[in-house]
């Protein structure tokens, strides 16, 4: 849940309409209770008005006095008009008349007029100022009010029911009120449930307030504006700082996993800071991208992964601690304000801002360890050698045992005199385990925030140093974030955010995700023959340039230690925003922003390793310098409408450019391993550079109308252009309309405490997708060809000037509910998303001089249901139990290709009537019980030893499962007892079928000179009549007679990758406020956390949770699995 406490600073009184920007829930802040207001009293005012809104009075006050007026729009909305005629009267008298019988009250100081909630049963505002009079006979009761997480709460109203004296907490959450033991205090703060607390001691009263979902007017960032969650008509998922904090994730996209319905987040690889795959409501494109766009404080950030050496997450340059909230715009009704790029959803990231008040310091430190999740059970030395022996015997039935063993000995480089007894005594070396290690992690955070009534700031810095669970991987990040806001004049305010980050990552070969490199520990180690020692007796690596026996001949640990794969990502992004209040109800907001990155990477193959030896060491240096520039200009206009009607409109333009200059240089032949710079390379083997760019321009109009907070209507129109498209199709129009109806506000809902909110939403809208090559619409001549040393140019691509947007049309129906006195809350959504005009490469005849052209062809649809359910299961006394559950069901289907094709040429996994990422593979029938040979089904469903190939299509694809989940989601349970909080978070994914390509390698049980999983050895066919799915070992994997290999890519390796994972457990303790105030601290939290602690899955490989894809195949070969991590941390605020 979101707790966006924003201090509202409103220089000018506006007529009480709900302003788009000024809808923050209001928490105020009054440390100056007893300040004299004599100066104000001296001012005498004239005012005359009949049935005028209260706001008009306030405006007059502000115009005619030096007072600043502070208020919350909602409060003003509840007021009724007044009739006042005064001449030369003190301001108090005017206010007294204006606020007579109003549902709200005010507070006057020498500088400010602040509108506040009415304190119950108070006779008049004068009484409040006479508080000291009645308290003379009373003692002071002192205490502190905080929320369940221990944060101080300021502006909480405290009323002593006995003497009707009221006060509010100050910035440190402290209050002081006249009273005595036995009094009943009524505690109240907007957004929290009211509490009554009996005074049992005079000081050190510690009161914890609980969020009231129904009352909380949560504010959601919806793009160019914010909106009350209660009034939103589109589909938006959001998480707040608290959720992000409790995930303790390295990158922000990780924190989204399992916490937002309809947002499927999967790791790509288990190294720290690695790239993540995010997909909102299923894949809506075949060949254009399916990732959402990311917008940080109004600035689109680059989420292209640049180099391929180390898996780097382009969002890693944002410290999750700096994030206030993440919102995902899921349906078109919400996202179409971003038009052309919004088809895959929009992720809006808002960073933390400073709040006015004295400086607040937050310090955080966490330390921990990472461990591999799971290791596979592999064959030992004896099992491997025996399997190898059997494979020779099976392949050469005429051979004697001696002949077969002789072959095994010779290829294993054993003496020919080796005996079976000697084999039985051989040790097994655990190479797999040696690839993994326990890493350490440390993170330091510091944030300073504060401000005056005209300015606010927040400066934060962080340092993180994490080692991965695979040897040679680490992640180091330093960040600095600065948020600053200042009101320059009464009308102009500037805001600025600057984020600087430096990320450094090392990885062994293959830490990009998957690999087949022989020196990659994650790939090679499970397959290195188990009788090969890892270390010599003196502890050094058992390394030889000649290599080991077997297919995997390289000492991966030696290579990893000496070679260097390093990526550095230095980034700067920031924006400057100008807010100009042209008129009371017309605001102009301008933003300019820049995201600049300097990414360099180097791959050095040390001359002492097998990888680099033959060429005397090889070094490749890469660079990428992407730059994104954004500017937007928005006008917010709130027309004056009769009571209960509110209309917010905005119109704006936005312009973005992106460019990237990239290149690499390779040199080889270094004098020795101490020289690691290109300057020392004997030969520069190659060098290249490239440049690309894109520009986008959009204009948009949005209108949100509400009547009585009961009926809501929202419309968006965006006209967007992208340079990627053809001349006549650069621009597209993206409309959206949505409506909402809160039934709970209707009179026929009689029991309003039973049904607090029941909002029906319906929306339709269109969004676009332009994630194709920057110049795909152009016919281009490229260089890079030479003849006889002369440079040539040639036509590389055939343009399509008709190329236009991929278009998504989404219909969304949703219900938001809050029931049973806010005990139960959540939402239900159903959507139908149809993606048309998909950008596809259509093969064209070579005879035309080209191989393909990008065209708008084909359709994909996604349908889904999403449920979010939250409940305060227990709220008695000090113990609170809150549970949040979400589940998303989705179905994906390709509904049309082109030219009546049912299968996409070149990719037979894309077929009409099936989901994307469908597996089309020869059908494995198992093992012939009589012969031990693998059999498949042919096209007629008969058993065969030789299934057809993909191209010919003469095998039977009976079952075409796909890689997309049937449903996924998460479940959080949070328990609070006094200062102790425990949260348990499960994440799950069901119905994902995965092609376990790594198992293909590991299933060879002696078929070739590689080690593999013991399960395959244990279950191999050994005797006639045996029923098993694992064929007998046979040298070369294929039986004689032209039979297919047993490890043929087939349905044999499809596995159910469904899982439920205990994603994290977080136990924290907030030190009691009474202790803290003694040492002048406002909060101290200690926590313990464990991530990826336990997983339930049928998947037999390393880890079911990862995402990999290629153009036509999916492979997890060499994947580095996710890691377990354990943290201890402390957060201190003062």
């Amino acid at each position, binding site marked *: 849940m979101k707790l966006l406490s924003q201090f509202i600073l409103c220089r000018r009184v506006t007529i009480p309409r709900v302003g788009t920007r000024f809808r923050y829930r209001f928490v105020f802040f009054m440390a100056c209770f007893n300040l004299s207001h004599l100066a104000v009293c001296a001012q005498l005012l004239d005012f005359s008005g009949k049935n005028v809104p209260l706001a008009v009075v306030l405006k007059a006050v502000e115009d005619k006095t030096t007072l600043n007026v502070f208020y919350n729009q909602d409060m003003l909305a509840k007021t009724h008009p007044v009739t006042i005629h005064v001449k030369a009267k003190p301001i108090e008298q005017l206010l007294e008349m204006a606020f007579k019988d109003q549902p709200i009250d005010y507070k006057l100081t020498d500088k400010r007029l602040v509108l506040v909630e009415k304190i119950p049963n108070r006779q008049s505002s004068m009484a409040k100022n006479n508080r000291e009079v009645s308290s003379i006979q009373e003692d002071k009761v002192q205490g502190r009010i905080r929320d369940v997480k221990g944060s101080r709460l300021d502006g909480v109203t405290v009323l002593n029911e006995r003497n009707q004296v009221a006060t509010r907490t100050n910035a440190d959450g402290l209050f002081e009120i006249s009273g005595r033991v036995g009094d009943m205090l009524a505690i109240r703060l907007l957004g929290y449930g009211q509490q009554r607390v009996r005074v049992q001691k005079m000081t050190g009263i510690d009161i914890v307030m609980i969020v009231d979902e129904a009352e909380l007017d949560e504010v959601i960032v919806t793009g160019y504006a914010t909106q009350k969650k209660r009034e939103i008509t589109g589909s938006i998922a959001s998480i707040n700082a608290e959720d992000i904090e409790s995930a303790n994730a390295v990158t922000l996209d990780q924190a989204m996993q399992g916490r937002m319905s309809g947002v499927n987040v999967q790791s790509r690889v288990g190294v720290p800071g690695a790239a993540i795959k995010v997909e909102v409501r299923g894949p809506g494109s075949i060949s254009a991208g399916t990732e959402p766009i990311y917008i940080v404080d109004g600035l689109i950030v680059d989420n292209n992964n640049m180099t391929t050496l180390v898996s780097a997450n382009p969002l890693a340059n944002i410290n999750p601690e700096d994030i206030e909230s993440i919102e995902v715009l899921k349906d078109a009704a919400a996202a179409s304000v971003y038009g052309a790029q919004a088809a895959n959803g929009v992720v809006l990231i808002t960073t933390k801002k400073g709040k006015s008040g004295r400086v607040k310091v937050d310090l955080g430190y966490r330390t921990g360890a990472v461990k591999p999740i799971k290791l596979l059970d592999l064959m030992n030395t004896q099992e491997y050698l025996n399997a190898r022996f059997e494979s020779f015997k099976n392949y050469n039935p005429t051979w004697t045992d001696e002949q077969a063993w002789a072959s095994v000995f010779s290829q294993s480089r054993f003496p020919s005199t080796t005996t079976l007894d000697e084999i039985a005594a051989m040790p097994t070396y655990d190479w797999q385990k040696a690839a993994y290690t326990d890493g350490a992690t440390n993170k330091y955070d510091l944030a300073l925030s504060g401000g005056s009534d005209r300015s606010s700031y927040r400066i934060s810095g962080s340092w993180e140093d994490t080692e991965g669970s695979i040897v040679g991987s680490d992640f180091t990040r330093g960040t600095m974030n600065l948020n600053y806001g200042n009101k320059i004049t009464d009308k102009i305010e500037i805001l600025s955010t600057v984020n600087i980050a430096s990320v450094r990552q090392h990885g062994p070969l293959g830490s990009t995700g998957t690999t087949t490199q022989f020196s990659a520990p994650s790939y090679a180690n499970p397959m290195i023959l188990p009788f090969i020692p890892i270390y010599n007796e003196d502890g050094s690596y058992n390394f030889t340039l000649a290599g080991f026996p077997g297919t995997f001949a390289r000492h991966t640990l030696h290579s990893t230690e000496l070679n260097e794969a390093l990526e550095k990502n230095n980034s700067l992004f920031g924006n400057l925003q100008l807010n100009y209040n042209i008129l009371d109800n017309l605001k102009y907001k301008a933003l300019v922003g820049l995201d600049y990155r300097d990414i360099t990477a180097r791959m050095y193959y040390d001359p002492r390793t097998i990888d680099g030896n033959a060429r005397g060491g090889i070094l490749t240096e890469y660079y990428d310098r992407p730059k994104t520039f954004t500017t937007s200009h928005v006008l917010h206009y709130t027309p004056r409408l009769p009571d209960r009607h509110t209309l917010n409109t905005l119109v704006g333009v936005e312009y973005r450019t992106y460019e990237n200059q990239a290149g690499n240089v390779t040199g080889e032949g270094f004098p020795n391993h101490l020289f690691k710079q290109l300057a020392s390379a004997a030969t520069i083997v190659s060098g290249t550079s*490239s440049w690309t760019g894109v520009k986008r321009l959009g204009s948009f109009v949005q209108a949100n109308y509400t009547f009585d907070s009961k009926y809501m209507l929202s419309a968006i129109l965006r006209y967007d252009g992208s340079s990627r498209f053809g001349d006549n199709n650069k621009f597209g129009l993206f409309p959206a309309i949505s409506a909402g109806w809160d039934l709970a506000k209707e009179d026929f809902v009689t029991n309003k405490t039973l049904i607090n909110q029941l909002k029906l939403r319906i929306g339709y809208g269109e969004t676009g997708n332009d994630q194709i090559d920057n110049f795909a619409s152009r016919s281009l001549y490229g260089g890079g060809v030479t*003849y006889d040393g002369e440079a040539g140019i040639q036509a590389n691509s055939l343009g399509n000037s008709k190329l236009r947007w991929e278009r998504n049309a989404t219909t969304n129906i949703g219900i938001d509910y809050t029931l049973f006195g806010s005990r139960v809350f959540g939402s239900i959504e159903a959507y139908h998303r149809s993606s048309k005009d998909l950008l596809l490469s259509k093969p064209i005849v070579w005879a035309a001089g080209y191989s393909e052209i990008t065209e708008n062809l084909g359709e994909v649809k996604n349908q889904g249901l999403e449920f979010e359910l939250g409940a305060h299961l227990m709220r008695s006394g000090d113990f609170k139990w809150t549970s949040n559950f979400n589940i998303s069901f989705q179905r994906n289907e390709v509904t049309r290709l082109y030219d009546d094709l049912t299968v996409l040429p070149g990719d037979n996994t894309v077929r009409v009537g099936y989901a994307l990422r469908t597996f089309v593979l020869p059908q494995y029938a198992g093992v012939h019980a009589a012969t031990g040979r693998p059999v498949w089904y042919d096209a007629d469903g008969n058993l065969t030893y030789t299934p057809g190939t993909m191209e010919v299509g003469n095998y039977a694809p009976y079952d075409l499962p796909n890689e997309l989940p049937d449903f996924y989601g998460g479940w959080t349970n949070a328990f609070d007892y006094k200062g102790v909080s425990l949260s348990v978070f499960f994440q799950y994914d069901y119905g994902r079928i995965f092609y376990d390509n790594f198992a293909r390698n590991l299933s060879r049980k002696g078929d070739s000179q590689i080690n593999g999983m013991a399960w395959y050895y244990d279950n191999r066919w050994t005797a006639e009549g045996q029923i098993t799915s694992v064929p007998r070992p046979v040298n070369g994997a294929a039986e004689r007679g032209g039979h297919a290999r047993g490890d043929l890519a087939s349905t044999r390796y499809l596995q159910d990758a469904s899982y439920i994972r205990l994603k994290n457990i977080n136990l924290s303790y907030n030190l009691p406020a009474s202790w803290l105030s003694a040492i002048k601290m406002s909060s101290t939290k200690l926590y313990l956390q464990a991530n990826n602690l336990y997983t339930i899955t049928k998947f037999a490989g390393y880890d079911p949770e990862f995402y990999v894809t290629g153009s036509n195949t999916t492979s997890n070969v060499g994947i580095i699995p996710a890691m377990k991590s354990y943290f201890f941390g402390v957060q201190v605020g003062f």
Partner: protein
Amino acid sequence: MKRNILIQLSLCTVLLLTGCEKLLEINPKQSIDSSTALTNEEGISAALISVYARLQNYTLYGRDYLALSEALSDNAIHTGNASHLTNESMNGRNAHFDNWQMSYYAINQANLVIDAVQAGSYEEKWKATILGQAYFLRALCYHDLVRVYAYDPTAIIDEYNYGGVPLMLVGVDDISKIGSLKRAPIADVYDQIYKDLDLAHSNLGMGNETAAPHRVTQAAVSALYARVALYRGDYPTVVDMADRTLIETKATFSTQATYVSDWLKEVHPESIFELKFNISENVGSDRSLRSTYTSRATYDATAFSIQAVVAVDPLFYDLYDPSDVRRELIRKGVGKSSTFWEMYKFISKNGTPNLDNVPILRLSEVYLNRAEALYYQGASYYPQALDDLNRIRTRAGLSEVSLSGNALLEEILMQRRFDLAFEGHRWFDLKRHGRDVMKGSGNVLFTDYRILARIPIREANADTELKQNYNY
């Protein structure tokens, strides 16, 4: 006041949006839009260079035209050292030339150059030089296509004759310009090649022989003309064109003494048109002619390098007279190829392994073409044919012969086989004579469907007018 501000703001917005198209203008930097790429002399020259570069592809003169012609025919055997070209050596189904894609790419590049030159106004001499080269390159590509995918006019099995190849004569820079893939009749393809060669010759004009042999010259045009006419059975033209070649060319005929050493030179003195390979233009060590033919990285190397998959058939080796100087280019390999005879015409001539310039049109072929054409024009031409034949024989260190009738033809063809061995002629020579391929790994009769290559399936699928060759 308020109204004014609103009007001003709306005006600003409108102004901003009218500049839209301009704001979205962006151009790639390492590529140029095709609409502007070929609008100046430098661009067109560079585009022409890339047509030559295309010929370096391994499916064209980088390897296949030479190595496959030997592997598919009876000149070579496969060593089994690696899997490359195994199926081709066995004449497996679909294991054939696969030059369709790259040839048509080159043709389209040439078409674009021709269209661009004609669309602009350029200096006449420069324009003619460019056009001449482009027409020649287009003609060369069409001839290579038609001899692979269609029967030659001199030997056609009507039942399986589905025509020549599609004629694409317009540069495609927009999808609307893609024409039909209907196969033109064989004769039409040859007419087009003649037409291109005539244009090439007239455009190139005299005096550009300094560009020889790595750029197209008039002599190259005439030499190709002679070859094409021979395939067409248009023998008087062969003789005319051969005569014209000999007048125009500056290439020099190797002597017995220099025969072997001329093959080791970077530029073969006999080359009328030779495809050059610079260091950055190699086709890769596993595909180069050097590594395909030989187990040595250089002529003097003693260690086994890689591949060495296409070796001289010992039966063919044995046909050489022991005194034939040309046999000296055939040597035993090293390492696992030490039992195989290898052809050393392509042995790292530039001093760097895997780089070998490929003579496409060479003087000896011109004489042999003329000898054959003279023979076919009747007995009255035998003396002239014998002149050419004996020029080849004596140069090889063989005695002069005096033959007539079929014996003369067979001797001409035999000398052609000896002299042009491993240069990409044997398969086509057998095919245009309608002869069966008799080889150890299994004979391929002329009536076999495997005489013609399979048109890529994707092409035939994409355009139903394109008729696939028989039995594919």
